[in-house]
């Protein structure tokens, strides 16, 4: 690294690396930017927030903190990988050429700034250029996932990709007003013709701060929001893994029970099916076994599952339900479920089939439900007297709620009941 010995970054990091236990890595799961603070905190045994505050203070004091962070990003391997970005960068000739071309840019910047008598900006020029050079190398040589993160952050920063025109205009306006504020700040700080009040540098600093907030504020907000939701997702995933492990134990117990009643196939099937549903509910919906049913289902998918479970338990047939999409229950959808349940009971009771399929799909304009069996079937034109009532209760119920029920059946080829209701508009 050409600039290595000049910044305080590498020396600082190297020192820590030798002082701590093991090798210093960038943390993968505790990171806001590159995980340097997370790695440092782990190494030092300190709270990561303290480390972050120190790093931010360093960054504010002259900008070398930022440069140091970037250099640490380059020189520290990410957790679980042994190669540093810097090691990869040595073979990136174009990247190095780009970085070298920043040197004349630095000289130019220094000349311009000193001409403008913006001395405090002059002191920032070197760390800014070092950081920029480091970021160029990182962007070109980082691993796939980090690169993806960088470019998505960049997109967010530049408001690329989202809502296009409006936000781009807003961004331009923000950038322009930020520049004006920054220029005003520089002017206030540097212009000797203003009164020599001690408030002068303070006022200038306020202007600079306002400029930063105007330009970067929305991006920070979004970053913070993403961070919170990412963390929540991780916690949730961990909980789920824990639950899955617990369930695995109970699976083995059920298997033992099944073995013991192996000579009663009906019993075994029932036991296995009940257990399977229970586990699935627990695993993927986070409801503990038995907690369902005390209050009625709140959504279509939960309602279908309840039908599935209850009819399997009551009639000893397998019910295979597939749902696509979901929606909160209202009067129409409850009616659909009730009719579907009726149809499923019918199939379980009369068809003689060992399994019934339910398919429910939530479409943009309507919700459809299909109940199908491969049982005896019947002639739809000559429905037996005792079954017409049930059919009417399905048909009638659907019609009352603006829906349709179609029953297709023929002797020997099973039955399919198709139910559908339109969805009320304005629901997601």
């Amino acid at each position, binding site marked *: 690294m050409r600039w290595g010995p000049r910044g305080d970054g590498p020396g600082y990091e190297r020192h820590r690396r030798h002082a701590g236990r093991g090798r210093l890595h960038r943390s993968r799961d505790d990171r806001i930017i590159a995980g340097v603070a997370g790695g440092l905190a782990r190494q030092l045994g300190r709270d990561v927030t303290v480390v972050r505050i120190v790093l931010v203070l360093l960054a504010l004091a002259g900008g070398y903190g930022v440069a140091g962070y970037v250099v640490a990003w380059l020189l520290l391997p990410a957790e679980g990988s042994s190669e540093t970005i810097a090691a990869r960068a040595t073979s990136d000739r174009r990247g190095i050429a780009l970085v070298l071309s920043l040197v004349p840019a630095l000289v130019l910047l220094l000349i311009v700034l000193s001409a403008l008598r913006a001395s405090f900006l002059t002191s920032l020029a070197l760390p800014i250029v070092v950081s920029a050079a480091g970021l160029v190398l990182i962007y070109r040589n980082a691993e796939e996932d980090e690169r993806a993160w960088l470019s998505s952050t960049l997109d967010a920063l530049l408001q690329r990709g989202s809502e296009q025109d409006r936000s781009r205009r807003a961004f331009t306006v923000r950038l322009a007003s930020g520049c004006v504020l920054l220029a005003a700040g520089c002017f206030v700080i540097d212009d000797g013709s203003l009164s020599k009040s001690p408030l002068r540098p303070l006022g200038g600093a306020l202007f600079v701060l306002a400029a930063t907030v105007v330009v970067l504020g929305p991006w920070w907000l979004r970053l913070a929001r993403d961070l919170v939701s990412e963390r929540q*997702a991780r916690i*949730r*995933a961990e909980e789920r893994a824990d639950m899955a492990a617990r369930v695995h134990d109970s*699976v083995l117990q059920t*298997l033992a029970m*099944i*073995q013991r009643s192996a000579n009663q196939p009906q019993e075994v099937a029932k036991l296995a*099916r009940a257990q*399977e549903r229970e*586990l*699935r509910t627990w*695993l*993927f919906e986070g409801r503990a076994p038995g907690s369902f049913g005390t209050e009625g289902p709140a959504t279509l998918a939960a309602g279908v599952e309840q039908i599935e479970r209850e009819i399997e338990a009551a009639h000893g047939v*397998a019910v*295979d339900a*597939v*749902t*696509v*999409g979901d929606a909160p229950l209202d009067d129409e959808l409850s009616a659909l479920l009730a009719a579907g349940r009726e149809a499923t009971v019918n199939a379980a009771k009369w068809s003689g089939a060992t399994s019934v*399929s339910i*398919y429910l*799909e939530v479409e943009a304009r309507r919700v459809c439900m*299909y109940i*199908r069996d491969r049982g005896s079937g019947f002639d739809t034109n000559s429905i037996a007297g005792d079954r017409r009532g049930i059919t009417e209760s399905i048909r009638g119920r659907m019609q009352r709620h603006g829906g349709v029920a179609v029953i297709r059946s023929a002797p020997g080829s099973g039955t*399919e009941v198709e139910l559908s209701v339109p969805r009320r508009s304005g629901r997601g």
Partner: protein
Amino acid sequence: MNPARVPRVFLVDDHHLFRSGVRSELGDAVEVVGEADEVPAAIELISERVPDVVLLDVHLPGGGGRAVIEAIKPIHPTVRFLALSVSDAPEDVIAVIRAGARGYVTKTISGPELVDAVVRVASGDAVFSPRLAGFVLDAYASLPDDIERPSSLDVEPDHLSPREHEVLRLIARGYTYKEIARELTISVKTVESHVSAVLRKLQLSTRHQLTRWAAERRLI
């Protein structure tokens, strides 16, 4: 499928009871050439015996069914995989399919149906259970429209054709291929080719959108 030669099948599942159950259900219709209960053993034995079809549990100690497919595919491209599971989190099932499995059935499947599925996979077709069809419909239905569609070839795998959609819905409703063919007045071969096309799309679709769907599922 040549009737003189039954498919050679390999079982991978971490439950011993389940393996012996499947073995007896498959009976003489197929030749079971081996079984394994974890990923490394499965990889070793499969590459040694090179079966026609591997019946593969989605959840396995040591990396899951996906790890087995990923290890075997490059060395033995002729080996076909049929995923089998009880605990079907959609994202896991889709992941196994995307890794290269030719189909997915639930463990509640009956013996004859399982044999049928194995034969179908052995002859190069795809096997979609109602549940898988449901997952796929769900995945494609929730692919957001706000993402800009590139005007390149990438468009294809990210959208189902109306006909494919229709076929998938019938599968989800519990129709067999034969019943679907009758319903849509097309040949069973055409149904099979639609299903294979969906499988291919699923495997080719831009990773971004399907993983996004999976991530959303996980968060809900």
